């Protein structure tokens, strides 16, 4: 018992912080319908403010008040106003991408503003962090543990009073059930949900400030891990129950210390602790219902269009299976419009220029790479090609199928490690190694897909995130896989007398591999499977109803997508000559999804451009002072703000604009007057929104 207490008591402060995160997450999710992954970043920003103020000599109470009660709510209200309020009813992907972008961008932005990451351990908000004030049995309780526990108790008590006994508490509970019905009762629901945002932001800020002394220095990564624990707590609370989320967070904090205490040291034991959230997510996510009580007025919302708009490029196939049996009235409408004789002609005429332009630019880029471009530029371009393949895996999975994965980097890393290990230990040619890496990643994809078959949208994203975290901690550190931070070497390929070790031949080989992968994606997209995938994206239920084996399809597409990522990762490793776990950590997966979503998930071109832009920008910032190291993350994070307005992606938006302009001019010349801006004349960016899920939504 004493030994248990020895392990459990140090877990209490962690548990308190996890609980605060979990409760805050559930609170915003219920009151505003957004699962705010930027929560971890908000915690970091406040922690950074607290530590910075403390180091500048401010009294500790003042630093705490400013960080928790001023900066925390300020960030939260800004996020709500600028972003989350506008995407309340958007599709899961459109909700997720900005919060992921902000999760990565906000800490970097804060670091740029603050100047540097403070390296001195921050103090506890009250008392001396290290001093033992009293004993529980024989277990000593330090000032840090006491202050964290006390602060949590105060906050929780305050919440209980607020919800049970105050008017705004009653209004918040009403808003949680139905914002619209609350408005009908004469209550300004927007103001109530803003209040909930302030409240939850304070909790994030407090969690960040309380947690900061537990680490020797402030590192945004620790706060992402904190977020994942908070998410696990929220999942235990089924995204709905504040008390359950509280208990869940607390229990997780204690459990992780107890597990670490009783297990013998080693990779498994070290890995088991960080992988607890994954286990929790897998067990509890299937129990989560999206909403506890249905909002009877949810049909007031215009049908969510983003899942389709994000993938406008694949639309040609999208009206097939779901519109079978005329369930998709819009699909029918859309086909009719496209069937008009005049519009088809303009469509072809209009589409050609942008496609031609893209091919010319691509050709020129390749030609330049092989002739005059300096070696370091060529390396960057080659990296872009490798990443383009990884991005293609998301084009397939998220763009075509609508499944959100936050573990693509894990698949890429695994593919790379496999290829390298096979080459190093068995002398397997690296090109075969890439295939093997792809196959292994595919196997892993199946392993991820099967337990998550019943999940979609946000829960699926969270489960894959937890899986990435698990792989980072259990798989990658092993010497026979990723060899931890040290990494492994991956050779350049050669085939008989032909060596691809030099930069230019390797670049050509990479292009060939990219071409093959793009061909696979195109075949899948244009073929029967692509039509099935579009149907599944439209509605899993409807797809099931027309006889598509949705589960089999999902496993298949997960495997294929993982294989693509694995090949890309192997190519990247071979290009770099070495690969380490840091290259494909779980946070990279989030960045990858954000980048390709912004550029465009709807086309192969989108993946290629995303690859080039991503690597080029990363090289570009290395020439800036070290303070700006996180600038790429900040740029993409801020770009997510515009993403919510143009979920079809930058590329489709741009080509849509160009095509509309051309069509305008052309019809002007023909004397028809300006062309109608809309779906008919190829305004890709302004395509009509898709029908709601014919089975689930659209009642009334």
């Amino acid at each position, binding site marked *: 018992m004493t030994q248990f207490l020895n392990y459990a008591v140090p877990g209490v402060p962690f548990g308190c912080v996890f609980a605060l995160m979990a409760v805050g997450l559930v609170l915003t999710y219920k009151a505003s319908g957004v699962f705010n992954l930027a929560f971890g970043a908000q915690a970091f920003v406040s922690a950074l403010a607290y530590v910075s103020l403390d180091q500048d000599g401010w009294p500790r109470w003042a630093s705490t008040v400013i960080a928790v009660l001023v900066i925390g709510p300020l960030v939260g209200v800004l996020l709500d106003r600028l972003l989350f309020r506008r995407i309340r009813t958007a599709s899961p992907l459109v909700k997720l991408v900005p919060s992921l972008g902000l999760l990565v961008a906000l800490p970097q932005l804060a670091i740029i503003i603050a100047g540097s990451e403070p390296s001195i351990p921050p103090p506890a908000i009250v008392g001396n962090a290290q001093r033992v004030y009293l004993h529980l049995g024989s277990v000593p309780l330090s000032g840090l543990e006491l202050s964290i526990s006390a602060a949590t108790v105060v906050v929780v008590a305050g919440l209980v009073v607020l919800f049970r006994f105050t008017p705004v508490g009653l209004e918040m509970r009403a808003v949680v059930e139905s914002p619209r019905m609350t408005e009908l009762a004469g209550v300004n629901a927007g103001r109530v949900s803003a209040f909930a945002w302030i409240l939850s932001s304070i909790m994030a800020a407090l969690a960040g400030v309380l947690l900061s002394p537990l680490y020797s220095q402030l590192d945004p990564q620790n706060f992402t891990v904190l977020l994942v624990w908070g998410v696990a707590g929220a999942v235990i609370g089924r995204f709905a129950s504040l008390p359950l989320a509280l208990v869940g967070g607390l229990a997780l904090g204690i459990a992780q210390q107890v597990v670490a205490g009783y297990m013998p040291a080693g990779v498994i034991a070290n890995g088991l602790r960080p992988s607890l959230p994954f286990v929790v997510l897998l067990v509890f996510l299937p129990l989560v219902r999206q909403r506890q009580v249905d909002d009877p007025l949810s049909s007031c919302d*215009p049908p969510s269009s983003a899942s389709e708009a994000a993938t406008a490029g694949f639309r040609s196939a999208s009206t097939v299976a779901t519109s079978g049996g005329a369930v998709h009235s*819009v699909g029918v409408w859309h086909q009719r419009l496209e069937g008009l004789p005049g519009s088809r002609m303009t469509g072809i005429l209009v589409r050609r220029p942008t496609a031609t332009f893209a091919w010319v630019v691509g050709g020129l880029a390749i030609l330049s790479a092989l002739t005059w471009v300096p070696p370091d530029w060529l390396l960057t371009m080659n990296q872009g090609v490798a990443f383009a393949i990884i991005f293609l895996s998301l084009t397939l999975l998220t763009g075509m199928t609508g499944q959100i994965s936050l573990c693509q980097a894990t698949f890429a890393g695994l593919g790379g490690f496999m290829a390298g290990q096979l080459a190093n230990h068995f002398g397997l040619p690296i090109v075969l190694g890439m295939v093997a890496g792809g196959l292994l990643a595919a196997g892993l994809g199946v392993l991820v897909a099967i337990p998550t078959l019943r999940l979609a949208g946000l829960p699926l994203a969270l489960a894959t995130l937890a899986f990435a975290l698990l792989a980072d901690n259990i798989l990658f550190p092993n010497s026979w896989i990723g060899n931890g931070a040290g990494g492994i070497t991956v050779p350049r390929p050669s085939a008989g007398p032909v060596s691809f070790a030099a930069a230019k031949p390797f670049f050509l080989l990479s292009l060939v591999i990219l071409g093959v992968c793009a061909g696979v994606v195109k075949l899948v997209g244009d073929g029967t499977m692509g039509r099935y995938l579009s149907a599944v994206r439209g509605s899993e239920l409807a797809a099931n109803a027309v006889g598509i084996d949705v589960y089999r399809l999902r496993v298949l597409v997960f495997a294929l997508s993982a294989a693509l990522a694995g090949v890309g990762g192997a190519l990247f490793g071979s290009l770099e000559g070495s690969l380490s776990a840091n290259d494909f950590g779980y946070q990279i997966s989030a960045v990858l999804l954000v980048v390709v979503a912004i550029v465009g998930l709807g086309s192969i071109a989108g993946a290629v451009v995303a690859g080039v832009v991503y690597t080029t920008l990363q090289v570009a910032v290395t020439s800036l002072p070290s303070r700006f190291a996180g600038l790429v993350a900040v740029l993409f994070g801020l770009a997510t703000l515009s993403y919510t307005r143009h979920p079809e992606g930058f590329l489709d938006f741009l080509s849509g604009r160009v095509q509309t302009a051309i069509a305008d001019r052309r019809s002007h010349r023909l004397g028809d007057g300006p062309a109608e801006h809309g779906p008919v004349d190829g305004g890709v960016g302004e395509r009509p929104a898709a029908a709601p899920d014919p089975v689930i939504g659209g009642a009334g």
Partner: protein
Amino acid sequence: MTATAGDRATVEAVGEGQPLLELRDVGASYGPYEALFGVSLTVRAGRALALVGANGAGKSTVARVVSGLVPTTRGTIRFDGRDITGRPAYEIARMGLSQLTEGRSVFASLTVEENLTLSFRRALGRRGVPDALARAYAAFPRLGERRTQSAGTLSGGEQRMLALARVLVLKQRLLVVDELSFGLAPVVVDEVYTALERVLASGTSLLLIEQHVDRALVLADDVAVLSKGRVVYDGPVAGVEGRLGDLVLGRPDPGEG
């Protein structure tokens, strides 16, 4: 709270029989899907207007546009002498316009008393709540028996009573009822309609949306027929006798060329 917050004493109340709610050429859409194409109709103070029409004609959308839940794309809405087009739903509600939504129109997760308190506190202030609760329970004794029960556990009829109690106690200017009989047993519908008559008798005007046309016409003074997002008849019930079915179903009117 604000000037719009139902301080009715300062507003020149629209007299009996005068237009209380006026829709002029109102259009509305859900995203790209147009639902209303220029709807015009009038509810007169102290009277009941029945809005009838086939499935998908846009009846519920009219209700939502009136209460501010769905934005208009064109046209104007006037209520109680003021232009309420584009006003947020909570402001319109504070002006004395209530809506019973189709199906459930109470907060299932709140208790009966909390449901009532939510709107009473806003309209009457903290001190007015106990008295208002007492009046609500007096009007509907069954609600008093179930005051601590969560509203989701009430029967469909009791849920309608709960929503009507709120309207009755607050003496609202206009009540928009969307499918009051939806999902109720016939005997319960009778009960609920009796309660609705009390609401009308207390001076609250009614915009009655109902698929059970016969029920609605018993209570209504006027009737508006909606077909495919347009009003095809608006006038006294007497003027439509005998050809209502044809109008609702969109059959060509033999009387007109």
